[in-house]
């Protein structure tokens, strides 16, 4: 089953807990509003991998400032077009090496989720209640069924699923080799906001290989249940709504395909934020990071105009806020 959805729109608009939208109006110390509009480049849909895109439509839309505009409604497959399979996620036992395991992040650092790492979580987090493995067999406790993964992927994790490595298979929600389709609205010509916009709790954008770029993972809730929501090498994992989605950018590490640098050595582009500004990798070809990023992690240059640079793969974020208006309504 491939479920077509407009998840980014639905989730952003429906969840009562959202801090995005109205609350952003209280921001007063905006840095991005000083950026001149001449630094804006239109969204280039040709940069998307054709295998990742189901459809691209040009539609009328309303921006978050109330202005009418034109947007691209881009429907992506939800399966990374540069890969044939996902994972690894949880290690199977305490001897599992990095090559057969996924990732976990903590306070800015991305770790190999090896068996050894899991077996030392009590030391890592300074709490003896961590016990994700069978002390006799060394087997890691993994949510290896749809029922168990969904039972563990909720705030009130049942007792029997605490101290588990949580992983959900994409095949629970889509056919083998396919993803959960999502449609994203991107303003064709981005418009700078007067004050920066909050990320909220939904997706922040879409990758050029057809995957949701998610907001920060609620790691405090995950850890409070003594669970690890394992990522693969691309800092992605699966949930029942978005399917496979990313929580960080880790191109070129392990089984995660690299993204080519720009011709001038600038970091490579890998996606677009919901405000239509492009997102590039954190580092340039010399391994250096820009020193003039604004609060949203954006900067301007003559080649790319205003654009974002992703945070590090272990930082649980891509960008800090939206410098541009997002599309908050549509006629699709």
């Amino acid at each position, binding site marked *: 089953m491939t479920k077509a959805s407009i998840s980014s729109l639905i989730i952003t608009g429906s969840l009562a807990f959202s801090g995005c939208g109205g609350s952003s109006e209280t921001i007063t110390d905006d840095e991005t509003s000083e950026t001149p509009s001449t630094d804006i480049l239109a969204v280039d849909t040709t940069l998307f991998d054709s295998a990742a895109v189901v459809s691209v439509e040009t539609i009328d839309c309303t921006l978050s400032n109330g202005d009418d505009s034109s947007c691209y409604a881009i429907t992506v497959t939800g399966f990374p077009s540069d890969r044939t399979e996902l994972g690894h996620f949880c290690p199977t036992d305490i001897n599992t090496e990095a090559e057969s395991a996924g990732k976990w992040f903590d306070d800015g650092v991305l770790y190999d989720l090896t068996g050894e790492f899991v077996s030392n979580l009590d030391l890592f987090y*300074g709490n003896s209640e961590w016990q994700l493995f069978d002390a006799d067999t060394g087997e890691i406790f993994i949510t290896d069924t749809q029922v168990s993964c969904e039972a563990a992927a909720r705030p009130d994790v049942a007792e029997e699923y605490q101290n588990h490595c949580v992983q959900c298979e994409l095949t629970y929600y889509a056919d083998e080799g396919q993803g959960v389709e999502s449609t994203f609205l991107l303003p064709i010509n981005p418009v700078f906001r007067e004050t920066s916009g909050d990320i909220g709790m939904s997706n922040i954008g879409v990758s050029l290989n057809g995957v949701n770029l998610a907001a*920060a993972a609620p790691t405090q809730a995950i850890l409070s249940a003594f669970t690890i929501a394992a990522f693969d090498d691309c800092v992605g994992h699966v949930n029942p709504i978005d399917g496979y989605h990313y929580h960080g950018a880790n191109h070129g590490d392990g089984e995660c395909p690299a993204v080519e640098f720009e011709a001038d050595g600038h970091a490579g582009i890998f996606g677009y934020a919901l405000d239509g500004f492009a997102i590039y990798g954190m580092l340039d070809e010399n391994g250096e990071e820009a020193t003039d990023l604004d609060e949203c992690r954006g900067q301007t240059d003559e080649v790319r105009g205003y654009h974002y640079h992703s945070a590090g793969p272990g930082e649980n974020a891509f960008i800090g806020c939206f410098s541009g208006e997002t599309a908050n309504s549509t006629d699709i």
Partner: protein
Amino acid sequence: MNTFSKIVVIVFSGLINAIAQAHNGHGDELPWQACSTSEKNTPCEYTNSHGDIYQGNCKLFGEALMCVRNKPIVRANMSKMLTPIKLDNSNQGTK
């Protein structure tokens, strides 16, 4: 979207739960703790267990503020003022 689906999304995709944490020391609380008493958009900083310094601004994710870095990471070996903590079980970064 049914209630259960919303709950799952909350856990995996975005809402920052305000559940108090029992974990001490090394923990992903640091980016959140750095902004726990701050206002949105104010500068923030935290030092992780490796001694690396992250500097940025407090940004809103769901209902909670998290420190989002916008300055290059100050690595521990670049700062003689800090002594990184050695964790026997750590395996930072790349394979």
